[in-house]
Structure formats: structure tokens, C-alpha cells
């Protein structure tokens, strides 16, 4: 549990009764809406903040009793953009490596790999202050790959990156996990979490609302069906009929209709309707995405509250 106490304010229970384990060598997602308590959880796990109560350990080292032992096992990308503004990109890398005990030829070798991996070779002599926001973030994330710590924390690591760099980061993260490193990440991009993570915890208002493997979470009794219908003619008449099934989501984009329904009966009825229609060119049914489940879970809890 983590309670923030500020003078003149009521204490804020940022994290309350959270409990989870992350298996070594896996990619673990900590998900939740803004202000859910994800960053506070990361701060506690990375020894930035002590928990108000409870026990937290990383690779068997207690974050309160032995924070230095924890720090020796981890590297962290925090939500804040954090690079050395007055140093060049290569000095950023070397400085980070030096703090983690990697110097000289070993640091230079790691730097060469990272410069290529994150396509930063041309920017190696540029000063931090001159980089764009996305480039700063790239340098910040790339630093993590300079050292070989068993646990990596990434707090919204791909925020602000363009698609290509986001893809490079995702690939790098996946590769590091395959080499046995444990990755704990928070992200707003649920597609990213679904693609990367083997297990997730969803938190809201500081409490866990779902946890397990991606499939476990998607199977939380929330039977959602995503149906995509592509019409060969204007689908407006059809849309009116679709509304009868009280869809959770109904998006129209040109001649394509995306619809999400909760009941299996509704799904079959729509497919039957599509089968009878002469205007349907294709249809596709998929299960709920992690994003659908996430929205459903968070909304349900908000409504209950």
C-alpha cells in the first residue's frame, strides 16, 4: 500500500492492496487508466518510493530493507523524459553505462550496438537539449540496452515515439526477454501490451481489477464479439437494423462497419442478417481485444463506484 500524505490535503491512497508476482524472463504489463497507480507502483518497485505498508521484493531483495541490492538488478525508464540535456547522445550512453559499472571498451561496444538498434548513429554527437521530444525518448529507452540488468522497468516507454521507433523498441524488448531478462512495463497502448506481454495486471484507483495471462484477462466472463462487415453498397439501411442489437460499439468507416456486441445470440443474428444480404462483400468475427476488456472493466468499476 502507498498513501501520499500532504499537509492540508486528505491522504491519497495511490496503491491499495496490490499483490502480484512476475515470473523471470517474461514481459509483464501493468495497465490502467491515468491516475490508476501504475507509476506509483513502478516507483515503489524501483526503490524511488518506500511503500507505506506491505512487502515488495525484486529477485528476492526487499525494496525497503535492501534497496541497493534491488538497484543493482534493475534499470528503469521512468515516465518523465530523462536524458542529460547538456551531454551528447554518446556521452549520455557512456555516462549511463559508467553508473552501472560498464566502462571503456565494453561501454563502447554496447554503444555501437545500441546506436544501430535504435538508429541513433547520425545523432550520436548531437546534444540532448537539441533533440526533439521523440528523439529524447528514444535515447532514454536506448540507454536501457547499454547494460545487462536482469530486470527492466519501462514506464510508458514508447510514448512520443513514431511508429518505426516504437516498432524497434518493441522488437528490442521482445529480444531482451527472449534472452532471459524480465521486463515490467506500463503502457496506455493496449495493443502494444497485448502484443508483448505474457501476463498483465489491470489496476484502477490503486486496486487490482483483473490479472493473469492475456487470455485469462480476455476470458473474464466478458463475452464480447467484434464483427467487421464490408458492404459493396451504402450500408446505412443495414446500420439501422444493427442498432436493434444494442451494440457496445458501432463504427462506420466508408463501406465498412465495425460492431461489438456482448451476446452470442446477437452475434449469430447479425451474421444471419449478413448472410441474407446481397450487399455484403466480407465479414469477420473476432473475440474481444484486450482494449475492449480493459474499457469494459474500467467502465464497470467506475459505474459501480
Amino acid at each position, binding site marked *: 500500500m502507498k498513501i501520499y500524505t500532504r499537509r492540508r490535503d486528505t491522504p491519497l491512497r495511490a496503491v491499495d492492496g496490490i499483490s502480484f508476482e512476475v515470473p523471470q524472463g517474461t514481459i509483464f504489463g501493468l495497465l490502467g487508466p491515468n491516475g490508476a497507480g501504475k507509476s506509483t507502483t513502478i516507483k515503489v518497485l524501483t526503490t524511488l518510493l518506500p511503500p507505506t505498508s506491505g512487502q515488495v521484493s525484486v529477485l528476492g531483495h526487499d525494496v525497503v530493507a535492501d534497496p541497493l541490492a534491488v538497484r543493482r538488478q534493475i534499470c528503469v525508464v521512468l515516465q518523465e523524459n530523462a536524458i*542529460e540535456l547538456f551531454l551528447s547522445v554518446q556521452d549520455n550512453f557512456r555516462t549511463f553505462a559508467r553508473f552501472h559499472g560498464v566502462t571503456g571498451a565494453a561501454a563502447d561496444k554496447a554503444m555501437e550496438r545500441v546506436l544501430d538498434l535504435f538508429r541513433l548513429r547520425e545523432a550520436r554527437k548531437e546534444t540532448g537539449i537539441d533533440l526533439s521530444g521523440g528523439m529524447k525518448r528514444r535515447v532514454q529507452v536506448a540507454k536501457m540496452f547499454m547494460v545487462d540488468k536482469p530486470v527492466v522497468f519501462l514506464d510508458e516507454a514508447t510514448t512520443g515515439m513514431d511508429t518505426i521507433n516504437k516498432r524497434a523498441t518493441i522488437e528490442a524488448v521482445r529480444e531482451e526477454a527472449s534472452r532471459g531478462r524480465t521486463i515490467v512495463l506500463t503502457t496506455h497502448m493496449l495493443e502494444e501490451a497485448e502484443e508483448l506481454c505474457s501476463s498483465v495486471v489491470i489496476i484502477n484507483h490503486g486496486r487490482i481489477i483483473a490479472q493473469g495471462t492475456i487470455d485469462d484477462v480476455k476470458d473474464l466472463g466478458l463475452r464480447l464479439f467484434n464483427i467487421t462487415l464490408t458492404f459493396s453498397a451504402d450500408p446505412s439501411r443495414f446500420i439501422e437494423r444493427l442498432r436493434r442489437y444494442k451494440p457496445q460499439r458501432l463504427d462506420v468507416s466508408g463501406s465498412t462497419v465495425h460492431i461489438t456486441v456482448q451476446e452470442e445470440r446477437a452475434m449469430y443474428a447479425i451474421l444471419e442478417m449478413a448472410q441474407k444480404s446481397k450487399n455484403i462483400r466480407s465479414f469477420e468475427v473476432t473475440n474481444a481485444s484486450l482494449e475492449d476488456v480493459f474499457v469494459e472493466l474500467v467502465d464497470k468499476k467506475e459505474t459501480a463506484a
Partner: protein
Amino acid sequence: MNAVVAVMVREYLIRRTSLMWFFMDLAVPLLYLLMFGVGFDRAIGGGMMMGGESIRYNEFFTASVLVMACFGSAINQSYGFFVDRDNGIFYEFLTYPMTRAQFMFGKILFGCVMSLAQLLLTLIAAVAVLGVRIHYPLLPFVAVGMMMGTAAWFFFMAIFAFLIRRNDTFNTVLNVFYFVLMFLSSLFYPLEGTPDWLRMLSFCNPVTWQADVMRWFLLGLGDPGTVLIEALLFAVFLGASFVVAVKALERAVE
């Protein structure tokens, strides 16, 4: 020890990016001595009385320049803290494999190296250019005073760097401290002839305590009893600043 060295190398690399840093760290107090000190020395001509002894203003002011060096180094270091916190890397530092004490120690040690470099430059200028007579046997204590002063002012300024979130507010606080603490002290003039209210307030100022102690070690000027009390008070100031700075650091992370 590696972590402390890493902090110091990082400080050096940052300073290497701009000669302005080195100018602020090394040259400013020296220029005070060579410009303000020399000018004032000539202006008051026949010297001044302190503790019944006649001394030249240059002699009086040399110890003050050393205090200003400690103070200036602390301001630069704390400003660095503020910038680091503002751009977020400060929080990342706290997740590196080092204790917070090692982080602070590395910062202070770098500040001390800069202060000792200033001590050397100031003494060369004072002795070789201005002919100041220095009490050489106590010179090691001057060096210790420089290091304690650098640490104390660093901790003191760090409190504000940790607690203040706005750049303009932080700059204002630094300027106010610079002005009030410098002029309400025995830095620029002996307090003996000053009005009672000014003398009373100045004796409550840690700048006065450090300046008087440094002057005694450097020139043998001042009352040993008073200097001893001031040395103790300054040690308490250092300890208290350290404790409050640690609390402020914890608060800053939240």
C-alpha cells in the same frame, strides 16, 4: 567508490560543455578579489581596524572571497539539481546502483574539488599579486573550512532545489539569499563599527560564522573564543542542513 567517481565524472562532463560553468565556478570570486577588493583597498587608503589591529582591506577580504567561493559552488551545484529534477533525470539517478548518500557525496566531492581549486587560485592571487600575509601553519584548516563550507551551503541550497518547483521562484530565492546572506554578514566589512541591529542580525548568519573562522585560520584575526563558538555553530548548521536536505529529497521524489 565507483558510483562516487561516476557522479564526479558526470559533473565534469557537464561543465566541460560550457566554459561559462568553469568561469562561474573558478573565476567569479577571484575577480571579486582582484576588482572589488583592490578597488576598495585603494578607496579606503590607510587600511582599517579590526580587533585593535590595523589591516589592509585586501587582507580582510581574502577570507571573504573563499566563503563566496563555497557559496557560489553550492549555488551552481544546487542549480544543477534543479535542472536535473526539472528534466526528470534526477529521478532516474535515484534508481541507479548507488546509495543516495553516494550520490550526494559525489556531488559534494566535486564541489569540494572546485572549491579547493579556487582556494589555490585565490591564495596565489592574494599572496603574489596583492601581497597578503597568510598564516601558513593553519592553511590545512582553511582547506577543511572550504570543504565544510561547500558541503554546508550545498545542503542548504539543495533544500530549496528539492522543494521549489518553479524556475522563476528558485532563481528569486537564490538571488535573495545571495543578497541578504552576503551583505548581512562580516563578508564585506568588519561588524565592529556597524549599528547594533545590523551586528545582531549578522551574528545570526552562517556566512558570518564561516567568514570569521576562515579569517582566523588564514590571517590569525579575530577573538579565538568567538571563533570557536562560530565554528561549532557552523558545524550545527551543516548537520541541520544535511538532515533537512535528506527530508526534502524524500519529499521531492513523491
